[in-house]
């Protein structure tokens, strides 16, 4: 059962008014322009026991992603492919609005939206994750934890997942007498695309990107758009109640395409990828 959220509770109405008035002048609380994203910081390999990990901050929002691989059976309808699953948890230490317990609908939605971008852009070559056709394949468990929540956990989550994937070292197996054995070597996943997302907030007829937490509470509606390096739109999710004026959509797609380029460039610099 999905229940209406109590929103606009943490921020005084006067702040909401200020956010609106600033936006009308093309300004924001923290001095950004409406289409500026916050500074991004990427640390990879923080968790040695994970096969891949990344800690990403976007302004005050911090996301930790870890990847563990297991060997399992491929899906019967895809005998030549490995698989991956994305999970997300909004940890109670990240915000007073997150409570302990199994992932609620916000966590489920976060995981599914990130999953969509990764899957639809065919970022991971699943055929390379097959070990024995129809019998054994790698399963990647990609787990997202929101550590500190200062608005917009979608965009840094996608960045963190890609950073963890790009730097993951997957244990190599060989087939000995029909059985799988670790060789002690590792291989890298060669990512086939880099899909990033941009979160939009709309107030009246204006929009901004990457809202921080006070701004989020003042938004009429929000929307996430994912774009890959070939400028394909790979995922969209409207993730709040509210009306999206139809005439704003094209402009937002254009902005998403532009801003994901900025993120992609920063990502490649941070990870030393020559793309």
């Amino acid at each position: 059962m999905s229940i209406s959220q109590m929103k606009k509770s943490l921020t005084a109405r006067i702040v909401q008014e200020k956010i609106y008035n600033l936006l009308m002048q093309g300004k924001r609380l923290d001095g950004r322009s409406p289409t500026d994203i916050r500074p991004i910081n990427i640390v990879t390999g923080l968790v040695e026991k994970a096969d891949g990990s990344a800690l990403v901050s976007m302004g005050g929002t911090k996301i930790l992603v870890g990847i563990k691989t297991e060997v399992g059976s491929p899906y019967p309808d895809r005998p030549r492919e490995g698989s991956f699953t994305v999970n997300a948890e909004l940890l109670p230490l990240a915000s007073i609005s997150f409570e302990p317990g199994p992932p609620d609908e916000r966590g489920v939605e976060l995981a599914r939206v990130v999953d969509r971008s990764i899957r639809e852009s065919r970022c991971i070559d699943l055929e390379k994750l097959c070990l024995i056709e129809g019998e054994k394949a790698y399963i990647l468990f990609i787990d997202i934890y929101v550590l500190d929540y200062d608005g917009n956990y979608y965009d840094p989550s996608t960045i963190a997942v890609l950073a963890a994937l790009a730097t993951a070292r997957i244990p190599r197996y060989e087939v000995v007498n029909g059985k799988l054995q670790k060789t002690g070597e590792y291989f890298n996943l060669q990512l086939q695309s880099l899909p990033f997302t941009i979160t939009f907030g709309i107030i009246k007829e204006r929009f901004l990107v990457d809202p921080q937490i006070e701004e989020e509470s003042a938004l009429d509606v929000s929307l996430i758009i994912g774009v890959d390096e070939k400028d394909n739109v790979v995922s969209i999710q409207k993730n709040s109640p509210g009306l999206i004026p139809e005439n704003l959509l094209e402009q937002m797609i254009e902005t998403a395409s532009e801003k994901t380029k900025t993120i992609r460039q920063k990502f490649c610099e941070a990870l030393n990828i020559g793309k």
Partner: protein
Amino acid sequence: MKNEKLKLISEEGIRIDGRKLEELRPLRIEIGVLDKSDGSAYVELGKTKIFAAVFGPREVHPKHLALPDRAILNCRYHMTSFSVDERKPLGMTRREIELSKVIREALESVVFLEEFPRTSIDVYVEVIQADGGTRTAGLTAASLALAEAGIPMADLVAAVAVGKVEGHLVLDLCDIEDKYGEADMPIAMAPRLNSIVLLQLNGRLTKEEFRKALELAKKGIMEIYQKQRDALRKKYSEVSLMEV
């Protein structure tokens, strides 16, 4: 299987179920089909079959969830175990949790919740057979159930999925087109307000394709919207004929 090339669209631009690219499946709408609820509707879009029912405004349980300035809207999107090819396990899947959320948010965009503080309005969507486009058909049904329950709304919500199949943009994907196609984009609108209340994209579209897909969706949505209004009018002009 992957190597048997399944042909979903013929050379002549005819789809696997005989439709043209920009054609909706046959749509059947009935209003007031479940007696115990305050409002209900049944929507059939091709083989996709859905019941929606609304209770409320009524007292909130548990009480602490009540909001002082408006009603809360509860929404559950659920598929019966036999609605899909392989039996769906009982209980809510992650997909159903997500869809409950986006459907609720779409409805919250049009319902005047502030008219009923401290109450809850409960919306149940039951998919009894799924053949693609269940969230959108579910929304179409849910907004009619809300209307029948007499809950004031800024507009009805009409919804449809558009997508890309074998390089063609198509309206109202059926299950097999969704599964093997390149993109699926469910959209719901409040047509009178020129606004989008639900938007998701699963798949790859170029910017130009996105623009065209949006246009195509609008065309389908207007058609569905008209049929919704006809169904409501029919219901209230023929009150004496309470068949079913």
